[in-house]
């Protein structure tokens, strides 16, 4: 099941359903309708035994996220999106399967690793405390495109040409081949 969001095309081959959760089109059956009040993750994918909440962020200047303030802001955005999406789905009575939160970010591996830790700290995973009877998220993972394809080979993602982010220079640089000489040095 192919679905496109934010310049990326995902193929969830074993999905029962997949749709843009942050749908702005009023005529769509999955129109969100509460964007003014609630944040929303980009995609929701229903698998046989799980739901995936998928958030995609393609940055023009990923290096800015080395800065602590930007990094913390990004974490807060990812956290808020998950919480609001969970509440929305709870109200829909669509939290009947464990939920996994996947964030596809165009950051380098070191920042991805750091954000993984942050997200797990800020969105408690599983039965986080004895008083809880159920989890709000089964687990979460932050990945870049390369790590996504490596870890989820049956849900391949690729950059879609002709997106507004194509010239950000970030991922295309990561993927670029070797340059043989020291041109420009």
């Amino acid at each position, binding site marked *: 099941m192919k679905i496109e969001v934010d310049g990326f095309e995902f193929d969830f081959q074993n999905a029962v359903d997949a749709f843009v959760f942050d749908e702005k089109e009023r005529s769509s059956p999955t129109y969100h309708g509460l964007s003014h009040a609630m944040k929303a993750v980009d995609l929701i994918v229903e698998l046989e035994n799980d739901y995936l909440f998928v958030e995609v962020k393609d940055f023009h200047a990923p290096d800015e996220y080395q800065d602590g303030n930007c990094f913390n802001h990004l974490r807060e955005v990812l956290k808020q999106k998950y919480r609001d999406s969970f509440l929305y789905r709870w109200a829909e009575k669509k939290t009947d399967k464990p939920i996994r939160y996947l964030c596809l970010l165009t950051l*380098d591996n070191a920042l*991805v*690793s750091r954000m993984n830790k942050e997200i797990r700290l800020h969105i408690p995973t599983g039965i986080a405390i004895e008083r809880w009877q159920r989890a709000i998220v089964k687990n979460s*993972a932050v990945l870049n495109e390369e790590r996504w394809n490596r870890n989820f080979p049956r849900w391949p993602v690729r950059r879609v040409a002709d997106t507004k982010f194509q010239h950000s220079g970030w991922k295309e640089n990561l993927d670029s081949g070797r340059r043989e000489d020291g041109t*420009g040095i």
Partner: protein
Amino acid sequence: MIESVSLTNFTAFKSLDLKCSAGTNIFMGANSTGKSLMLKLMYAISSANKPLEAKRNKDSARILSDKLNGVFKPEGKIGRLCHNEAEESVVQTHLTGDMALRFALSTDLDEVVVMNDQNYLRYDRIPVFITPKEMLASFPGFSSLYLQREITIDETYFDLCQALELPKLRDKPDNLVGHLLDSVKQACEGEFLLIRQRFYYKPDKGTMLEAELSAEGFRKFGILQRLLQNGRIKPGMSGPLFWDEPETNLNPGLMKTLVSILLELARGGQQIFLATHDYVLLKWFDLLMQPDDRIAFHTLYRNDEGLLEHNSTDDYLKICPNVIDDAYAELVDREIAHSMGGLANEN
């Protein structure tokens, strides 16, 4: 300044053509890919012909051979530095302007053969090599030990001690050096002083203590401090600065300051060569560099046949292969496998 280096059958390199930046050159790569070797070779070439040596009326073949022996410490003949499948090795380098040097090593000779030393004898910019292990703590007695005993510690350590021993310049430092000295002093929260052949650390607050008792990270800044104070690093005047693994024992929190200082040195006309394994150092270069900074990232790696090759780029994002980022990739993969259980890799 070193403009380029070409190697044929030198140590692990079958062939290499490296164009150097006039600013900062950063060597990266896994272990045993020749980063330190490249730094040492370029240091040997640019330091062999310092004026003191030239005055001894040695020819370029002898002084080069002595320096290569001192820096690489090969057992037996210098021809050991040839690639193990070759009987002869050729090294060619272009220095500032019209100065060039081309020499060969042969497995059966104990001296290099100079084929071209165009104006090489006139090259008088003295480089400095900062070793991975700092030498302020080991300074007392090290030079005597090195001169009097057969030890396998290479000559870069001895040369560094010699450079550190030079007294401070009498003249007030120029604006750039003065500013950099302020930054260094702030980073190491004090000053290192050479008193009766021993270094001491005088903190901004507190009492003076032996350098050995000060923080090792501070001592790394102390080396920079001394070399700036005594003019061995003088942007625009001195030869290249080589620094092998500047990150060793340095608190990552001080890395931004270190990179800022290196960038300012380079902007002032100092050519710099670094070898590093450190993400934080590399990332700070990426974040702090200006469009006009001439930074070359040189990646050394082994190809599928096990031969050493290199890529150079001036764009941090185009570093390929990037072993530092790959190391983080492995961590991320492990984290995801751990957290996602069966969904990862088996989905």
